[in-house]
């Protein structure tokens, strides 16, 4: 199996989907000749034509909103929002239109839309380019939210998202685009939406993350191992729907959990995981669930981002707190 980085895996999935189905089209800012600012759509316009890979005018609202109409027309639109921060410009279309159209029409109009967007920090980007805003979208009934952490899952989950009859927000960890490399089958395959991935099992504590949080959790588990702490790692992978059973199973075995989110702490997705986990694994928990995240402050300019977003040390520290509490 070839090794591939994440952006190539995404490119691969897009190519496969477009080859297999004429209705699949891509629209977004700079997705055409430029191939997307991260090259996820490199060469696709040349290959599939200007009708199927469309440089949209610079307006996120209508990129998401036109996708609604395109889907009703019988297309399978894949909309790219250049950075997740700018999905705020389309929030009304995503939360109230994309997510609710099937329900509003009582099943008549389903929308097989995928909205792809890179998110998260760590690459010294300008302001508003680095926020981890996933929780704002999980709290939108009718929307699935998918967050791969490996190239393998990026390809398989993207193909599953495109095949899904309902709208999926597909969030790609910006800083993993080229850094994350793993084995990716060449052919088409899907990874089921709604299944977490047990990255490794542990006996003392379970580290739970998604997207870039998994990178941290894995490294933290290595560090903890050196200190004699056996830490398992779970990659939640799809935030909505959430596979709580896998998480509960892992945490029931260890009795302790750390949830790693990159977002500002308050009201992040970690709170949902912690609450559900506490409710379902209450009697197995030996210590309070610890959350690791960013402070409740706006994402800073690059000079301070290392202090803002959680790093491996923060996860290790969180895990130690959870280990010490009796």
């Amino acid at each position, binding site marked *: 199996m070839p090794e591939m980085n994440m952006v190539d895996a995404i490119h691969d999935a897009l190519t496969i989907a477009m080859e297999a189905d004429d209705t699949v*089209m891509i629209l977004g800012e700079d997705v055409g000749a430029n191939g997307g600012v991260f090259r996820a759509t490199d060469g696709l316009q040349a290959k599939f034509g200007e*009708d199927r890979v469309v440089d*949209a*005018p610079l*307006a996120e*609202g*209508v990129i*998401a*909103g*036109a*996708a*609604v*109409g*395109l*889907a*009703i*027309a*019988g*297309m399978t*639109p894949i909309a790219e929002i250049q950075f997740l921060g700018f999905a705020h410009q389309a929030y*009304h*279309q995503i939360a*109230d*239109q994309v997510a609710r*159209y*099937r*329900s*509003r*029409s*009582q*099943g*008549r*109009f*389903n929308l097989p839309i995928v909205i792809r967007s890179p998110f998260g920090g760590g690459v010294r980007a300008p302001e508003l380019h680095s926020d981890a805003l996933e929780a704002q979208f999980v709290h939108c*009934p*009718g929307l*699935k939210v998918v967050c791969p952490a490996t190239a393998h899952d990026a390809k398989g989950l993207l193909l599953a998202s495109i095949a*899904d*009859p*309902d709208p999926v927000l597909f969030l790609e960890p910006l800083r993993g685009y080229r850094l994350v490399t793993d084995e990716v089958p060449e052919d088409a395959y899907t990874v089921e939406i*709604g299944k977490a991935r047990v990255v490794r099992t542990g006996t003392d504590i379970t580290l739970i993350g998604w997207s870039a949080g998994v990178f941290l959790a894995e490294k933290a588990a290595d560090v903890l191992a050196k200190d004699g702490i056996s830490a398992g790692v779970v990659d939640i992978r799809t935030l*909505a*729907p*959430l596979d*709580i059973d896998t998480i509960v199973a892992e945490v029931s075995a260890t009795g302790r959990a750390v949830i790693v989110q990159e977002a500002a702490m308050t009201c992040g997705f970690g709170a949902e995981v912690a609450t*559900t986990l506490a*409710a379902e694994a209450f009697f197995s928990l030996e210590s309070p669930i610890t959350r690791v995240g960013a402070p409740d402050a706006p994402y800073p300019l690059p000079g301070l981002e290392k202090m803002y977003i959680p790093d491996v040390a923060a996860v290790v520290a969180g895990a130690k707190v959870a280990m010490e509490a009796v």
Partner: protein
Amino acid sequence: MTVDPDTLAYPVEPAPEPIRLLGPDGRLVDGAEPTLTVEQVVAAYKLMWLSRRIDERAFNLQRQGRLGTFSPTRGQEASVLGSGLALRPGTDWLVPQYRELTAMLYHDQPIDLWFAYWMGHMQGSATPDTLRILPTQIALAAQLPHAVGLAWGRKIQGFDEVVITYFGDGASSEGDFHEALNLAGVTKAPVIFLLQNNGWAISTPRSKQSAATSFAARGPGYGMPGVVVDGNDLLAVYEVSKRAAQRARDGLGPTLIESMTYRLGPHNTADDSVRYMDADELERRELEDPVTRVRLYLDSHDAWNDDDEEALAAEHKTIIDEAVAAAEAHQPEPERLFDHVFAEPTHRLADQRTQVLTNARGGIHA
């Protein structure tokens, strides 16, 4: 190149005269050449009355607590129907806001479902697959991007279909208006933007909505023509809409039509328009009632008389009685909360569904 720095390439100019074929007195304006036959106008007239009678019934039902907040089309029947007539029901698409009943009727909207929807029954949202009307849109202007995507997507696939979308003078201030028209221009989407300027956005008068002398002036800023029409003139609205539809089919792209009409009453059943509407103005506007105008036109063609009127009223009463009865027969179906969120409910949703359906109470616990 222009050397005079005082040159305003685009100065603010007075509003143009709207296109009008039929005057408030029911007479054709000099030179008017309507293409609707008298029979077609008779059919339209019937629909206008049906629309108005549904409005009235709905208003009364609301007052009796049998129907929720809703916005009548009263006064805007020519505006919505004249344009709706220019499209082919079942082939072309209607993308409504919430005040386009007459056009929806022409495009085969089942009346019982319309009542059911405004009564709050989710069954009313389940329209037949053959109906080419998108769901009523509550968020103002949010449907405009959908209309563009729909028109564009059908065009990509080689279909010869036109989309019309309706919205008000108020909705035209939303960012969605701008983004949608701009995309339509770029993609040459076969779509008609039918701006119903009815003078009000709830209590906000046209004058406070925009300093533009005409909303249609916005068309060229998106590479599409802007047309201004007397929205209370069925014949004129039909003619300009027909031409816009033809342009769309000819691959010439979208048109913005500003239909100058007037809201003959409160914004909706919750609104107390006496607080802000001038009574004299309203009275004056009643004289331009689009339904009366068509009746006068038909009179002058001896195409309608008081007996017809009476028979029509009776027919409509039956239709509406039946529709209301059908709508009121719906019982709450709580599974509708859950069954159309996704194709397959998630685990969590399935659990929540069980909880709600099992217990006779609101909400869930976890």
